[in-house]
């Protein structure tokens, strides 16, 4: 490098890396413009930022004894009043605070499980799309199998057998929800494999992994992103359902766990709607936000969907 320190004429072509970065920035900007044009997607994105903010801020500013069973001051399942504006749970803790606390664990499990699904789905999808013939056939049969299985049943069975912890929940949900991603990514990979630059790469002697890693992966990344965002919505729903069925990590409060506590402590017969309504609404809204974002991103990526 030091020998080339003399100023060069402006006509020097930019390095491959700089070109790639510029092109990447350009397409990211295009994508953002298409995404921003959709109101539903923006509503979802703003909603999600609020939820993330809640998840980060609540443990920092809330009183530290909000989750303590022994130091709770409210009455047993007391209706909303001036002090507890969403009433209290069976121990006299504030439902409003519990719901805010639940955001963190629910989001963490949902996002982590979707990431697990993303890694498996992308890997299977690219490999199945790249290698034709037997490998592809076997992988797609496995994908189909996972796609059609009653995923909730499989997830329940896995959590019962492996134990109730966050790690197990993440793995169980991830393993049961990667198939959709794999299918989409495989179709996209097939399309990319036919393009001239891959033919060129092959002619220059690029190996299988180099073709998949350097050429296919960057091209499917936006689609992976959209698919993962949708997967988070599904993962949060599955987590809530598992938790509601009693399959939660007792040390980590999630919305599903709150609803399970409400159910098993007789909130229904007590008519304690303030205990049932808030966590469920939070699940609904956060899942809706992820779904809206994912759909908007899909539309932004696929001009055919813009009608």
């Amino acid at each position, binding site marked *: 490098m030091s020998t080339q320190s003399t100023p060069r004429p402006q006509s020097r072509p930019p390095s491959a890396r700089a070109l790639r970065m510029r092109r990447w920035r350009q397409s990211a900007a295009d994508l953002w413009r298409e995404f921003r044009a959709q109101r539903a997607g923006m509503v979802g994105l703003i909603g999600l930022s609020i939820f993330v903010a809640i998840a980060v801020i609540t443990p920092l500013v809330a009183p530290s004894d909000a989750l303590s069973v022994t130091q709770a001051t409210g009455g047993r399942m007391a209706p909303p009043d001036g002090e507890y504006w969403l009433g209290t749970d069976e121990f006299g803790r504030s439902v409003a605070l519990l719901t805010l606390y639940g955001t963190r664990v629910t989001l963490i499990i949902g996002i982590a499980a979707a990431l697990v699904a993303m890694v498996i789905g992308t890997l299977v999808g690219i490999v199945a799309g790249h290698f034709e013939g037997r490998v592809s056939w076997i992988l797609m049969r496995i994908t189909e199998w996972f796609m059609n299985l009653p995923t909730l049943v499989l997830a*329940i069975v896995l959590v*019962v057998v492996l134990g109730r912890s966050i790690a197990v929940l993440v793995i169980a949900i991830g393993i049961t929800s990667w198939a959709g991603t794999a299918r989409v990514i495989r179709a996209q990979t097939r399309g990319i494999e036919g393009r001239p630059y891959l033919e060129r790469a092959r002619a220059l002697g690029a190996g299988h992994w180099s073709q998949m890693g350097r050429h296919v992966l960057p091209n499917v990344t936006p689609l992976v992103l959209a698919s993962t965002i949708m997967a988070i919505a599904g993962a949060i729903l599955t987590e809530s359902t598992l938790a509601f069925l009693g399959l939660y990590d007792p040390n980590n409060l999630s919305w599903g766990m709150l609803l399970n506590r409400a159910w098993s402590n007789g909130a229904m017969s007590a008519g304690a709607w303030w205990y049932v309504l808030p966590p469920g609404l939070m699940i609904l809204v956060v899942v809706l936000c992820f*779904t809206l974002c994912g759909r908007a991103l899909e539309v932004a990526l696929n001009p055919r969907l813009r009608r």
Partner: protein
Amino acid sequence: MAAEATTPLPAGSAQGPAGKLDNAARTGVGTGLGKYLLNRVSGAVVSLLAVLFSAFFIFRVLPGDPIDNLMRDMQSATPELEQALRAEWGLDEPLWVQFWSYLTGTLTGDLGVSIQYQVPVMQLFTDRLGPTVLLGGTALVLSVLIGFSLGAKSAWLSGSKFDKRNVNIALIFFSAPTFWVAMIAIIIFSRELRLFPTGRMVSAHTPDRFWPQFLDIAHHMVLPAITLTLMIYAGYLLTMRASMLDEMGNDYITTARAKGLRDVVVRRRHAMRNALLPTTTLVFMAIGNVINGALVTEMIYTWPGLGYTFFQAIAVPDYPVLQGLFVIFASATVLANLAADVLYWFIDPRARKA
């Protein structure tokens, strides 16, 4: 999410040369249907074997020793019970012997004995199957009718207020946790308005004759059926809408309109017929979804079906019941998919050329 599952993959490379020969010998002429069926059935058999393998793997291999696991979770564990279970499950045998006896047992309909009820899982299954089929079937029919008609109309009027409202409502039910919707429904309709009972399938005092029983069961089924329908119809609506939008760009629609046909006729006889092709098979393919939904719905309404049985087995945990029902649920989805593939052959001529 559901939109990806519209069409089954065309019959393709699944057939080896041996299969082709075999098939030609069997049918005389190489008819397409025989080949297609052989292809699909062999695929289903492989999937069923995969179900059996995975059940064995999950319940016998993954936890290390299922008895240790069970004893840890069970409240009333005694060494005698542990010994008895170990002998009963044949856990002192080598793994491949266990697998063989499990395989032969399952294939002959022996799914083990439930820990909590002390009856064979197979008997539990036949006892509890009826309510699940009744509830799941009713909800499936309702959601197909509602989802397809609303979806088709929504696509037809795409961009209109009707369309937007439909899609938004569907998305909300798509995003809402079923169990929570059910909880709200119970609070509103059972607790406050006292319109419907909250649990079980029949009341104890109902006379044991057909009509009183029928009406009582129908009364008990209103809330569960609506809950389950709300959970699954959204997927059908969105798929039908997407499928219909695809068809609407086609030339034959323009032709039909140019002939001066009424709007309703173009929609029902032309567009919807073609849009139904990929979506009909979806009904069968989404059986897994119905099972997922039935599990939660039955649990909340204490509906005495398979889903409720499965739920009750979680807390014990009643491994033979969990394992047996897992095998049954997964096999049901495999068979439903096979049915979808076969149906697809008959309703879509294009499948025959693939």
